[in-house]
Every structure is written in C-alpha cells, then in structure tokens.
C-alpha cells in the first residue's frame, strides 16, 4: 500500500495569488515527470489558477511579511534592497502597489529562469497532471465552466476523495 501511495501525489490548492500558483505547478510537473499520478484539486480562490484569463493572478506584499520584494531593474545597490522590509506596510495599500509588485515579481521570475505560470500549467497538462475545479465554489463565486481552460474536470469533494483514496495529499 505504501508503495502505491508513494507513486501518487495530490494537492488541494486554495490560494488565488501568483506566488502560490508556482509551487503547486512546479511540484505537480516534477512529480508527473517522475511518473507519479498527480491530481490537483482547486477550490475557493485557487480557482484563479485555472482561469483562461490569468490577469487576476497577482502578488502583493500587503499582509505577506515573508515576501521578498526586490527591484528587478536598476543599479546593483538598488536591486539588493528588500522593499517589503524597508518600507512600512502602509505603502502597499496605495493604488497601483499590487500592480507594481506583480510586475516586479513576474520580471524577477523570468530573470531567474522560471517560465510564465500559464506555460507551466500547460506543461503540467501535457505531462498528464489531472486538474479538477471545485463545482461548488465555481457556483459560489459566479464563474462559468467556459471561464476555465480546456482539459480540466469539474466535480466536488466526494469525487476528489473517491479518486485519491490512498494518495499523499498536500493542502496549500
């Protein structure tokens, strides 16, 4: 039984921000590349990660003290400053702050050799990762099935647990 479960991975994803989308798709694609059966279940704000339009995936240092916020452009001394520590949290409530932080985060990720999150998501599907969007939260939040990317399925918690009875699960 243990041997079987080590060949499977399941992640229940509830976060709707860009920074949290990355670890899920990175873990899922790697596990799939290592021939594990991977099931991703997206619920509540995690649904954002499956939308065709990913512009809603943002990142903000507001209420996120662990986030390292460095400028991807400018002279070296400037790039070393962690703005999330240097500036008071109030700054991140200003209009445009989340947009700026998201722009910086995306640029930083690309400079570090990461691929855009849409590309990573497509890679997961290509590698056979199975993705399910929670129907209850889709209804709750007023989404339509047509808002979501192709090749995913829609169901509830019972189907998820029926499909992953012995699987190692991570709740993110």
């Amino acid at each position, binding site marked *: 039984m243990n041997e079987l479960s080590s060949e499977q991975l399941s992640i229940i994803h509830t976060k709707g921000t860009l920074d949290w989308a990355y670890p899920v798709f990175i873990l899922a694609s*790697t596990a799939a*590349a290592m021939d594990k059966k991977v099931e991703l279940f997206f619920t509540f704000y995690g649904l954002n990660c499956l939308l065709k339009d990913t512009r809603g995936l943002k990142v903000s240092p507001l209420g996120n003290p662990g986030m390292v916020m460095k400028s991807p452009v400018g002279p070296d001394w400037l790039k070393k400053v962690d703005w999330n520590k240097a500036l008071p949290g109030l700054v991140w409530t200003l209009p445009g702050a989340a947009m700026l932080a998201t722009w910086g985060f995306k640029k930083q990720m690309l400079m570090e*050799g990461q691929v855009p999150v849409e590309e990573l998501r497509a890679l997961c599907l290509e590698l056979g990762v199975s993705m399910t969007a929670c129907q209850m939260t889709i209804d709750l939040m007023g989404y339509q099935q047509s808002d979501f990317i192709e090749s995913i399925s829609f169901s509830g918690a019972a189907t998820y647990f029926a499909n992953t009875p012995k699987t190692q699960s991570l709740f993110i």
Partner: protein
Amino acid sequence: MDIIVDSKGFACPMPVIKLKKALTQYPDKSCVFLLALTDTGGMKDVPAFCRQQALEWALQQEKPFIEFKVWRKSDVFLCEGGG
C-alpha cells in the same frame, strides 16, 4: 545517437521536465542524452531523477555550465556491472 537537451538559463523544474520530454521523444535504448543546465539545484536533482527513473548518469562538467550524460540501463551493461 547523442541527443542534446539544452536547459541552460532555466530554473527548477525545467531541466528535469526537458530531460523527461526528450526521453519520451527518443525511446531508443541506444540514445545518449547530453543535458546542459545552469540551475545549480540540478546538481542533486538530475541524479535523483535518474535514480528514480532507473537511468544511468555521469557528470561531464560543472563549468561554464553543468552537463550530465544520461542513458538507459542496458541489459548487457547490467550483466557486466553486476559480474
């Protein structure tokens, strides 16, 4: 046949994903994969991937970029290696 898998400039998990895709694309046992990468995490991740996938590997170089040679275990090799 040597298959070049260039993953230079890409971070985790791309080196392993690119290697996996190349392995799927070239199923022949005689294929040797030359994986080039700059992601230092790959120094441990690529051998771990190979171990799990029952592949043979050898570190060819570390600079100016990391290069692994990866190939499938052949029955002949196993006989020789196992005595």
